């Protein structure tokens, strides 16, 4: 056996895949700790490099194909690097959605090309045919669903739930259409029109399934679609007899499902209820009932007053939310914290698992502003601390502080674990207006006698407090 033959041998390629899998798995394992996460991600990336190089050794490839491959790789790199480099930290979630979408799109395209290569004959080899149809349906749903999720988070499409009449029936009809077309092909119909029908029906389904879901639930949607793309990649792997696709795709499919479940749990939502309808859809009825009871007076305050309050505090807990992300206020917050620390005031950050648009969103933003990692406290660690906290500074967070989740059984967010800011001696809420949060419900915290509201853009408000503090 010559050296070339050795490297091009399917066993060598599979052995290289085995190395790649180990790197993926170890990489993911290292991603579970902040101290090793950077290394873990790099390890997984190198694993991908190994898998790609091993695949390029495939003896079926010859010179002419390498040119096409190079074109694809160069275009992909030329688009991927700048978009990943230039995206703002606040836009990370939609960037993930977009990258997820193109992955799904790639699967759908590969399935389509394979169908054409087989001359439309999927019936004589169902081992290939069934996974191809599956990959086409899921890949197309994932591509379009992710694009809608991107559009919603980016503000291109309204973030509020869009009601589609008889949505569930329409969606089931679309799924049924895609499956029926797939079955017809698997039974021997060599019709490309039918295959395109699969892709189109799944595409419309992807659009209609995500459109009715409110912006607050988007992380769960993206995570679901992430798992979907993984599954479709695994299916494509079975069709193409490629273990790398099967293993890596399935690991993502499994991990995405776990992640989705954890996110949904943190929001006290089931995956089913997220995917079947928007938060906002049911909220107005509740709001009407709740508004009357909670409708107390709202006290508004000034930056100078807040500065005085803070100056005499011993412990201050900052509760960041999406409003801080939108206002890009994280650096201003860090400056304020530094000023407080100079006065020997202890500053901690309370991170709700679903604050912002994705779990960990706030951590990423605050870390960008050089907030020490150990000051970021998770909900279970910080909740007992509120009792001995002098001031809670709620910056652009709303639903995650809503006491209704604890006390009001008919609230749509009842049972969701929240940050008990109302247990601290006083609460300052920085907010642009009295508009409700993404759940579209009233927050009685704002009417609490301990609470004072500081209206305005979070970034300038925080900066103002800092400068007032300096003058004390």
């Amino acid at each position, binding site marked *: 056996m010559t050296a070339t033959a050795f490297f091009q041998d399917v066993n060598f390629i599979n052995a290289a895949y085995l190395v790649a899998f180990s790197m993926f798995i170890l990489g993911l394992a290292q991603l579970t700790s902040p101290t090793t996460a950077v290394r873990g991600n790099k390890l997984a990336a190198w694993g991908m490099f190994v898998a790609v190089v091993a695949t390029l050794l495939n003896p079926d490839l010859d010179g002419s194909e390498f040119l096409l491959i190079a074109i694809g790789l160069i275009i992909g790199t030329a*688009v991927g690097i700048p978009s990943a480099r230039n995206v703002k930290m606040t836009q990370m979630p939609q960037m993930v959605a977009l990258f997820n979408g193109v992955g799904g799109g790639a699967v759908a395209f590969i399935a389509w090309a394979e169908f054409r290569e087989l001359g439309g004959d999927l019936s004589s080899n169902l081992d290939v045919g069934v996974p191809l149809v599956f990959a086409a349906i899921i890949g197309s749903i994932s591509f379009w669903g992710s694009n809608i999720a991107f559009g919603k988070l980016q503000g291109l499409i309204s973030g509020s739930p869009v009601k589609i009449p008889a949505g569930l029936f329409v969606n089931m009809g679309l799924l049924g259409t895609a499956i029926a077309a797939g079955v017809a092909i698997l039974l021997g119909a060599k019709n490309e029109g039918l295959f395109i029908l699969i892709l189109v029906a799944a595409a419309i389904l992807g659009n209609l399934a995500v459109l009715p879901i409110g912006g607050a639930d988007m992380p769960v949607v993206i995570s679901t679609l992430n798992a979907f793309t993984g599954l479709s990649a695994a299916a494509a792997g079975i069709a193409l007899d490629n273990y790398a696709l099967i293993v890596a795709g399935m690991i993502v499919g499994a991990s995405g499902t776990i992640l989705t479940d954890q996110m949904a749990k943190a929001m006290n939502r089931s995956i089913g209820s997220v995917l079947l309808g928007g938060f906002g859809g049911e909220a107005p009825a509740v709001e009407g009932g709740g508004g009357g009871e909670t409708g107390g007076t709202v006290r508004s305050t000034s930056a100078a007053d807040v500065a005085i309050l803070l100056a005499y505090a011993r412990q201050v807990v900052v509760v960041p939310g999406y409003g801080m992300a939108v206002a890009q206020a994280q650096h201003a917050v860090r400056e304020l914290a530094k000023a407080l620390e100079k006065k020997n005031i202890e500053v901690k950050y309370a991170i709700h698992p679903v604050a912002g648009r994705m779990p960990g969103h706030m951590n990423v933003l605050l870390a960008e502003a050089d907030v020490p990692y150990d000051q970021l406290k998770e909900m279970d660690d910080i909740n007992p601390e509120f009792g001995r906290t002098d001031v809670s500074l709620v910056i652009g967070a709303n639903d995650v502080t809503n006491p209704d989740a604890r006390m009001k059984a008919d609230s749509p967010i009842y049972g969701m674990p929240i940050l008990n800011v109302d247990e601290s001696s006083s609460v300052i809420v920085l907010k642009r207006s009295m508009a409700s949060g993404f759940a579209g419900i009233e927050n009685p915290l704002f009417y609490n006698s301990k609470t004072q509201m500081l209206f305005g853009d979070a970034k300038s408000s925080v900066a103002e407090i800092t400068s007032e503090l300096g003058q004390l």
Partner: protein
Amino acid sequence: METHSAFLLAAAETAEKAVSPLLTELAVLVLAAFVGFQVISKVPNTLHTPLMSGTNAIHGIVLLGGLLAIAHADGFLNKLIIVIAIAFGTINVVGGFLVTDRMLSMFKRKPDPVPEEPES
């Protein structure tokens, strides 16, 4: 030596035929699912966004599907579709890992005043 390895290869092929390749693939699929469940269930909330982004990058492995499919692609349209698929897969991989790296680099601890590892 040549005949020996040829014999081994033939034997391996027969062995492979004895077990349906689909069944082997499904077995691998199921095991991979268990690995995925195990690895992920230990991640703290804090790292969920980077983790989602990281797993997202890993399913960019579909890129390999494009590399395999292009080997037997005929005709302009088929090749075009696959080149698009390769480009999409590459965006997924390159963008995914880079974005994850950017997120994670923000978690890097500032150099501690006391070194964690004792210097000897």
